């Protein structure tokens, strides 16, 4: 079979996955179904990464997004018990949905016009980077991950170290935010018992 045809097939199949999942996220009533639509979108994005020879990022996309973030979403949905379907026919602000649709169409057309216009622009010679190892061109299947590692641990080592600080801060913040503070609990109990009288 023709290679070009296969590439088009992969692109359009993955694009359908991405857009179908995204529309599922914003239209499905049940938050669990929306999270499953998000999984579909993330897998489609991972396929597009593979098609663009970004193999390491595709693996990280599956592991971090589909493996960790969506599981966290589902866990919170189950924890809070908000997995009942919401009535989407209620519009709190009357004109908001038409306005949002108009804004979305405008955003698509603006970005598409910018992309089409910029496509014919010439790339400045000093804007070209060090070159990118493409596995099907160089024949080295580990080239992408080696080049990414050299770039990450060479040019961006300071930013990489800072991400560890960011992750520690995020973990500490989560523990602080979700902890039930004993002192506040006592105050709340005292307040509720004084207002509700001898209900206990």
């Amino acid at each position: 079979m023709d290679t070009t045809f296969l590439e088009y097939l992969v692109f359009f199949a993955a694009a359908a996955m991405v857009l179908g999942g995204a529309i599922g996220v914003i239209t499905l009533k049940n938050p669990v179904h929306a999270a499953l639509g998000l999984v579909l979108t993330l897998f489609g994005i991972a396929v597009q990464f593979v098609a663009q020879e970004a193999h390491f990022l595709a693996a990280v996309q599956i592991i971090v997004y589909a493996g960790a973030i969506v599981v966290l979403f589902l866990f919170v949905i189950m924890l809070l018990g908000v997995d009942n379907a919401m009535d989407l026919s209620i519009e709190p602000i009357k004109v908001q949905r038409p306005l949002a649709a108009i804004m979305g169409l405008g955003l698509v057309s603006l970005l598409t016009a910018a992309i089409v216009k910029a496509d014919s622009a010439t790339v400045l010679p000093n804007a070209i980077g060090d070159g990118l190892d493409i596995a099907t061109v160089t024949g080295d299947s580990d080239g992408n991950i080696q080049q990414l590692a050299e770039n990450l641990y060479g040019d961006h080592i300071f930013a990489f170290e800072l991400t560890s600080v960011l992750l520690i801060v995020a973990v500490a913040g989560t523990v602080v935010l979700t902890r039930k503070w004993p002192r506040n609990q006592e105050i709340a109990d005292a307040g509720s018992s004084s207002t509700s009288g001898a209900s206990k």
Partner: protein
Amino acid sequence: MIAAIEPSWYLILAALLFSVGAVGLLIRRNPLVMFMCIELMLNAANLTFVALAIKLGDINGQTAVFFVMVVAAAEVVVGLSIIVSILRRKPGATADDLAELKG
């Protein structure tokens, strides 16, 4: 392999995905679903980075995607814990009900 599909196609797909995420953020009222729409927009930005890394032949675009993923993971953890602590206090609250910080 790269030649058949232009990088612009990926950029247009990313533009569509970003717009769907932005519209979803505006029309949905469930805080968790709004958060998922933010993830959609972040993924559109990632797709743009990778497509331009191919177009310009620059590995820095893929490194940027790596950092975006790390920041997105931290953001999701903190944001979901805020949502958990809010919804524990007000069960079933939508984004319209959350006006506790209003003076």
